[in-house]
């Protein structure tokens, strides 16, 4: 099977699975009551499927830290369900998300201390910073999943996934890049659904977990591939820019202008590192097509 076909398969099949469930959840009234359960389940399950198609059959515990993503997606389903709890108890979701993220970050990055790549002090410091940054990103953007209807938010998330895929790919990991692309495709299937169903919302559960999974992919690419720290910081900022529409001074803007502003920021913050990485790759003296 060619690499192109394999990439289409690993992005297309999981996206199709998520899309069908979201569409059914949006169209069939009895199912609509269970969107809070169905939507995160469809998202997490599709990410697990993408992991299986790209990385292979999961083993527990994985010997390779980058293979934890399958289990992170499973955890993400639980966290997605919890994100749907009533507003009064949302602090509980926030606290659990912080604890869980801390644990996931240890699973993802501890091997770098064990192998001696990081010193224990610098490793713990990096894990702490990345846990807090990922938590802030989730908490900041999660409400958009509740408030934004239609194709806009899925399009922005899919763009972030696509830009992340290219950036990780050109920083020496085709498999993590492919996973980011699949993740972008899964949330991107919300674009046609958003056009079909005007009332379609990705919900808090999907948006928060999609950002968590994307951030974990960035973190793994930073730890195990060659994604530079400055690009990692820009990716976090680009993710946070999705919440700009909730800033009071900007909330008065025309929705189309607000969408265009967020897209522009996304393209600048994540697109410029991608362009620079591509240039660095092309400037290499030897051609290498990653297979």
């Amino acid at each position, binding site marked *: *099977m*060619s*690499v192109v076909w*394999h990439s289409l398969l690993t992005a297309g099949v999981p996206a199709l699975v998520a899309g069908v469930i979201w569409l059914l959840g949006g169209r069939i009234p009895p199912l609509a009551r269970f969107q809070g359960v169905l939507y995160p389940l469809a998202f997490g399950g599709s990410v697990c499927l993408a992991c299986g198609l790209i*990385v*292979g059959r999961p083993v527990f515990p994985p*010997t*390779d*830290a*980058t*293979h934890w993503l399958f289990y992170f997606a499973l955890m993400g389903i639980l966290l997605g369900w919890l994100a749907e709890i009533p507003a009064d108890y949302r602090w509980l979701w926030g606290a659990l998300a912080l604890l869980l993220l801390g644990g996931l970050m240890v699973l993802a990055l501890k*091997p*770098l201390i*064990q*192998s*001696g*790549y990081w010193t224990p002090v610098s490793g713990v410091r990096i894990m702490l910073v990345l846990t807090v940054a990922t938590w802030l990103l989730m908490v900041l953007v999660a409400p958009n999943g509740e408030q934004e209807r239609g194709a806009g938010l899925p399009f922005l998330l899919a763009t972030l996934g696509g830009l992340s895929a290219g950036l990780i790919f050109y920083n*020496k*990991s*085709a*498999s*993590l890049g492919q996973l980011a692309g699949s993740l972008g495709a899964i949330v991107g299937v919300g674009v046609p659904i958003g056009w079909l169903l005007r009332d379609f919302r990705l919900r808090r559960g999907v948006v928060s977990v999609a950002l968590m999974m994307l951030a974990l992919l960035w973190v*793994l690419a930073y*730890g*195990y*591939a*060659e994604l530079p720290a400055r690009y990692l910081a820009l990716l976090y900022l680009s993710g946070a820019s999705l919440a700009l529409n909730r800033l009071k001074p900007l909330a008065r803007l025309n929705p189309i202008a607000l969408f265009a502003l967020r897209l522009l920021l996304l393209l600048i913050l994540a697109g410029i590192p991608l362009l620079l990485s591509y240039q660095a*790759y092309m400037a*290499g*003296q*030897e*051609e*290498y097509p*990653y*297979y």
Partner: protein
Amino acid sequence: MSKTCTGRWMAYLSAFGLLMGSLPGAYAQRVTYQVDPVHSFVIFRVKHMNTAYAYGRFNSFRGTIVVDERNPANSSVEFEIDVNSVDTGNNQRDDHLRGPDFFNVRQYPKITFRSTSVRKINNTTLEVKGNLTIRGTTRPLTARVTYVGKGRNPRGQEIIGFETTFTIKRSQFGVNWGLNGGLADDVRVTVAVEAIRQ
């Protein structure tokens, strides 16, 4: 008087030791050799696009070989490869090989082999069984090792040479990238060593 007595006893003991030592199998003659990385090679090849073979090598490794010529079962091998030293003649490909798609060098910087048994097949061939660890996964490996020769290097040190070629399935070690695309599962590895007596 006592000094003369002690001296005589020492002479008797030395003679006895020499006599016993000359008997076949009277004592184990285990000789330790260190792999000389300058004159040793670890080469691998894998089929690309089901069309041609791509070759690569590791430039940094170390190993210890303990040889017991009288009782080969007492011999042993330990080998450690620095995966960062992978070299296929293309820097971009080498970076990709070091990354999480292949060796994940930041988590697993070493490939190791430790023998568990050595059996003599004939005068020039040994069967070495042991555990090969790649990317954190350990699998048993059996290799036919050819004894190439023995001699002295220009510094007067005793040297010994061995060579082995074996094939592993990279998927068994979790190195799965490209199996659907263009890189075969089978990787043929050749290890040719010259080792210096310690």
